[in-house]
């Protein structure tokens, strides 16, 4: 059963890697692009670099992972708070929602350097950029989840002496949880992008920083290796949240 689930995507990935390996290793890819061969690494070449430079890559991955997790958590706290505030008052929601949407129209690539000017080369600008793009899917999906609350269940609870907080806790929160997890999964996926942009705007470590340096030095294989590690981080976070959802939301 498990195998039948995993086999198709695995085969597609392996086939694509195989094609790439073939095209890169006999120089066909470099020739057709009119490039030197070292600029067009093969998967095996990337794997080799990943292994050779593992200490460097892991060290920088650590920096980026800390940024992602901290930024994601900050976004979760802000996002959930905003969603609950919007739910509690129509006025607040109408006043605040346009602002939440507007926050997503700010091009991250433009705001990132500004934040670096304000907050320096440390973790703060990265944290703010990551939470800026993460908080939107969390707010929207949490609010959407809260809105799924069954009004009849709420009236039943009122009739059975539930307080406003009791209804929130026993009806609204469980109803919204699947939405919270959906938002968190999307946020985990985009958090990686935020981290890279943040590091590009100014950093002295991190995978985004490493990619930028390798780009300048034409270390193409190591760039790919860093991108691969970034992907792994995003997928791992996504899977972790999915796992958590299955443990917490058992009634679905």
């Amino acid at each position: 059963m498990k195998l039948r689930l995993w086999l198709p995507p695995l085969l597609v990935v392996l086939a694509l890697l195989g094609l790439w390996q073939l095209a890169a290793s006999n120089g066909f890819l470099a020739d057709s692009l009119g490039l030197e061969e070292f600029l067009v690494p093969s998967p095996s070449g990337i794997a080799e670099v990943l292994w050779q430079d593992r200490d460097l890559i892991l060290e920088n991955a650590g920096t980026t992972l800390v940024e992602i997790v901290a930024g994601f958590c900050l976004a979760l706290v802000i996002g959930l708070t905003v969603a609950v505030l919007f739910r509690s008052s129509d006025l607040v929601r109408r006043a605040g929602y346009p602002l939440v949407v507007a926050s997503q129209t700010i091009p991250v690539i433009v705001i990132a350097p500004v934040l670096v000017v304000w907050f320096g080369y440390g973790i703060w600008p990265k944290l703010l950029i990551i939470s800026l793009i993460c908080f939107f899917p969390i707010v929207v999906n949490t609010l959407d989840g809260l809105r799924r609350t069954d009004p009849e269940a709420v009236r039943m609870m009122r009739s059975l002496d539930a307080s406003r907080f009791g209804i929130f806790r026993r009806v609204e929160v469980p109803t919204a949880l699947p939405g919270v997890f959906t938002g968190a999964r999307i946020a985990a996926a985009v958090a990686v992008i935020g981290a890279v942009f943040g590091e590009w705007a100014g950093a002295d470590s991190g995978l985004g920083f490493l990619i930028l340096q390798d780009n300048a030095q034409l270390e193409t294989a190591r760039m790919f290796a860093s991108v691969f590690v970034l992907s792994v981080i995003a997928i791992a976070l996504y899977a972790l949240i999915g796992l958590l959802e299955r443990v917490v939301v058992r009634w679905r």
Partner: protein
Amino acid sequence: MTATVSARDLTHSYGSLKTLAEIDFEVSPGEIFGIVGPSGCGKSTLLELVGGLGSPTAGRLSVAGQSGNAGRLAGCAWMPQRDCLLPWYSALDNAGLALVNQGRSRREARLAAAERFAHFGLQGFESARPEELSGGMRQRVAFIRTLVSGKPVLLLDEPLAALDAITRADLQEWLAPALAGSGATVLLVSHDVEEALYLADRVAVLSPRPGRIVATVEGARGETGPRDQVVSSTSFNQRRQELLALLAARGENK
């Protein structure tokens, strides 16, 4: 006897839509008061108004002497048409919700609910999730949830509507003593004339919208004997025909 639930010249509208008009009734303590009528006649609205979940547009409505919404809310336990069991809680936790809401510990609530589980044929299903229960079991859990609240007035909105005819007949036989044993005053809304007649002391017939009480008929609650025998007696049949005729005369039947 002072009326536990009383309505005087009660009127209700949703915007320009008049749903209930000039409703007058009194329900004594411990009485089971059935309400039948065509769909859309405002039966459910009437129940929610009594329970303090809405305000009448005009007229007086009181529960145990309380006429404000909060007072009526405090005196009544409402069982909606859908069972509204919360899927994230076990059957037992669902049944004990009212006590938890009232500030008792989860353990106490579960204990109080568990006492009723055996009595209602639910033993062994305490930790089942609502989706694992049959329709009849879900209705019983919802009923225990209402009963356990300990409120003096129970408002049952089509408590058996979601069930097929056979299960419904069975559950009626089980509901009758359960209601009697609770000592509560009950308002029971039904679209099923036989069900209302069998369970209630009196049955009020509502007209199509805006709902008015067109007649009140004596129910069969006091009668002894198995359900089959009660509902096939001549006097029961007469009253059933009378109710059906009243409903038919006022438009659609059902």
